[in-house]
């Protein structure tokens, strides 16, 4: 390790000790939406003032930490049990990745500084009929003069009720094969014609939403990349879900997550002790894998299935681990009816964390989709023959 990194670690530690709120897990348990949003925005601003909110952005936009420094930063934040950035997540990762990869200068200037000022983003990709088969999406965007008129319905849009802007995928050419007729837009959530309805999830939260779009008019200048090239642009957004975001979650699992599991366990019970040791080995392997994927991505040598391997392993390990926590917690674990907002899935409220763990095995490409990607892109196994309707345009196949 170089002297520079050592110094950086010392300064991050000092900052964490001073700024990570001591009692946030207690004070944020059972709070309402308003307090959650306030807390998230305050914590984001605090991180930003230290230069820690968007370490992965290029220096000219307010980031510029090296990959080694980013890894170290997330390790220290997890070690100091800092709150998670939940609301800002899509903005600093997905929106930024998209704008940096495919946005115009004007789009970047409009949005990147705004994200640092607290602009909240939501991802409008999935639809009722387009889940794992995302490319079959039906929401349409019709060019009218200098605008597009959007109609359709989006689903599983996390945080949509707090969002200022939406990353929107919509079909602009129903006559092209399904991946070739999709465009990528930036949508102002205050535009008339947008209705957001929260959906209550399995743990009773309502952070993901449906978005109904009725004749929503958006300026053509909000198209990202070329018309009908939205599928490729979306790959940049989806790629941002891995790498560092996974490293952060793995570090959290290795710190607070495992610590609380040990605290909750009867370590004198040899069966329990054996399971704990198994989890420790698995978490250690996961953390190593996340670091490797981040480093390899930086060097441009990451494998085509690496992101899927990490996502699959994290999500299923999380499920096993929270299941175990719920099991050893006995009936008492079931009396924890609320978990701290702004925490991850290692809140120590094991039953809620366990039920909530399906939020990792289903979204962002379900475990089944990840295994298919790993088999095909990682191992080169043959694809399943495409059904005929996928070879023609949505209009020909009658799906729009």
């Amino acid at each position, binding site marked *: 390790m170089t002297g520079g990194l050592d110094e950086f670690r010392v300064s991050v530690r000092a900052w964490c000790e001073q700024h990570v709120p001591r009692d946030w897990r207690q004070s944020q348990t059972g709070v309402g939406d308003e307090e959650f949003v306030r807390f998230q925005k305050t914590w984001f601003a605090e991180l930003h003032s230290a230069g820690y909110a968007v370490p992965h952005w290029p220096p000219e936009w307010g980031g510029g930490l090296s990959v080694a420094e980013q890894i170290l930063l997330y390790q220290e934040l997890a070690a100091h049990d800092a709150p998670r950035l939940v609301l800002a997540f899509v903005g600093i990762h997905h929106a930024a990745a998209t704008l940096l990869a495919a946005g115009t200068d004007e789009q970047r200037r409009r949005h990147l500084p705004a994200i640092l000022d607290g602009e909240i983003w939501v991802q409008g990709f999935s639809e009722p009929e387009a889940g794992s088969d995302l490319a079959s999406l039906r929401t349409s965007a019709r060019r009218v003069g200098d605008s597009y008129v959007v109609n359709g319905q989006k689903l599983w849009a996390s945080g949509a009720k707090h969002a200022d802007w939406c990353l929107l995928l919509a079909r602009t050419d129903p006559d092209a094969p399904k991946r070739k007729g999709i465009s990528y837009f930036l949508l102002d959530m205050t535009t008339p014609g947008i209705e957001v309805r929260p959906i209550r999830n399995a743990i009773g939260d309502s952070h993901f939403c449906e978005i109904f779009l009725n004749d929503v008019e958006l300026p053509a200048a909000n198209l990202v990349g070329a018309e009908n090239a939205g599928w490729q642009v979306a790959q940049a957004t989806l790629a941002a879900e891995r790498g560092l975001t996974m490293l952060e979650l793995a570090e959290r699992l290795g710190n607070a997550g495992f610590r609380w599991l040990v605290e909750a366990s009867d370590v004198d019970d040899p069966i329990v002790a054996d399971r704990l040791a198994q989890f*420790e080995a698995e978490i250690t392997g996961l953390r190593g894998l996340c670091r490797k994927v981040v480093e390899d991505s930086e060097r441009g040598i990451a494998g085509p299935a690496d992101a899927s391997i990490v996502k699959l392993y994290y999500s299923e390990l999380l499920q096993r681990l929270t299941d175990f926590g719920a099991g050893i917690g006995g009936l008492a674990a079931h009396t924890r009816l609320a978990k701290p907002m702004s925490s991850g899935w290692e809140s120590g409220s094991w039953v809620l964390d366990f039920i909530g763990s399906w939020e990792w095995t289903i979204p962002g490409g379900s475990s089944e989709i990840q295994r298919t990607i790993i088999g095909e892109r990682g191992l080169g196994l043959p694809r399943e023959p495409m059904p005929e309707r996928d070879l023609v345009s949505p209009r020909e196949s009658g799906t729009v």
Partner: protein
Amino acid sequence: MAHEFAEFHDELRSVAGDLLAKDRTVDWPSLVDAGWVGLEVPEQFGGAGASFAEVAVVCEEMGRAASINHYLGSAVLAIGTLKALQPSETRDKLLAEAVSGEVRIAVALGSEFVPDAEGADRVLVITDEGVGVAVVTATSQPVLDETRRLATVDGVEVSEVLRFDGDRDAAVRRLLDRAAVAIACDSLGLCEAMLSATVAYAKVRQQFGRPIGCFQAVKHACADMLVSIAVSRQLVESAVRAIAEDRSDAGVGSAMAKSYVCSAAVDVVGKAMQLHGGIGYTWESGIHVYLKRAALNRSLFGSPAAHRKYLAKRYR
């Protein structure tokens, strides 16, 4: 640091892979000539002056080839033990003779079954004081895995007891950690061989008019093999580094690697046998060779449960 050695390791891996692919059985002189016995021995004794990190590369290739040879007992264990001893005339001579191939040594370490003891010129026996240099009667102990050579020893005649360099118990602990990690490397290599054989088979074996690799049931099982290999590799690399750098937490890394990787390997090879179908269960296919070796590896130098018990002591 990792990047500096990466090229050397790739080259070593490729040379070792080629040599081991020729014949399943590799005799002692060939191991000596390849320079693998003296890999981590200082140059003054005729070695290559490399480290355990390079030995680990060879171990992985041994697993990949399911190779039959004396490398585990007479190089990994023997050289590791001799290096842990205080320099002395006997120690230095044994080290030089082992590297040159004049004598073949085995080590009785932590089990009544001694790898590669049959036919060895000397057996090093761990005692309360240090390491006894002995001539023994070794009796071959057949095991289901025909790629490993285990023996029981009796009639132990110790000619001289050599001292460990430093604390005896700590030195023995380090030797056991090294041995465990060497086995984890072997299991990682054999997993990779089985995944690549299975993927190759799934691409060409046709049923229902298409390669079976098209089917999700097969594809997803292969994906699971790759995932557990990816995790295994992280644990192995980290444990190898800890051993090579003689870090104080090497025991933890070694216990994680040995318990996770050697368990995962049995699952991976089991899947390989399953996905090969009836052919996979035949003697001819050779998959049983890997399954038996994976199962033996899991039991060598501490079961997964024993290693996890060691890890769990830290939770109190």
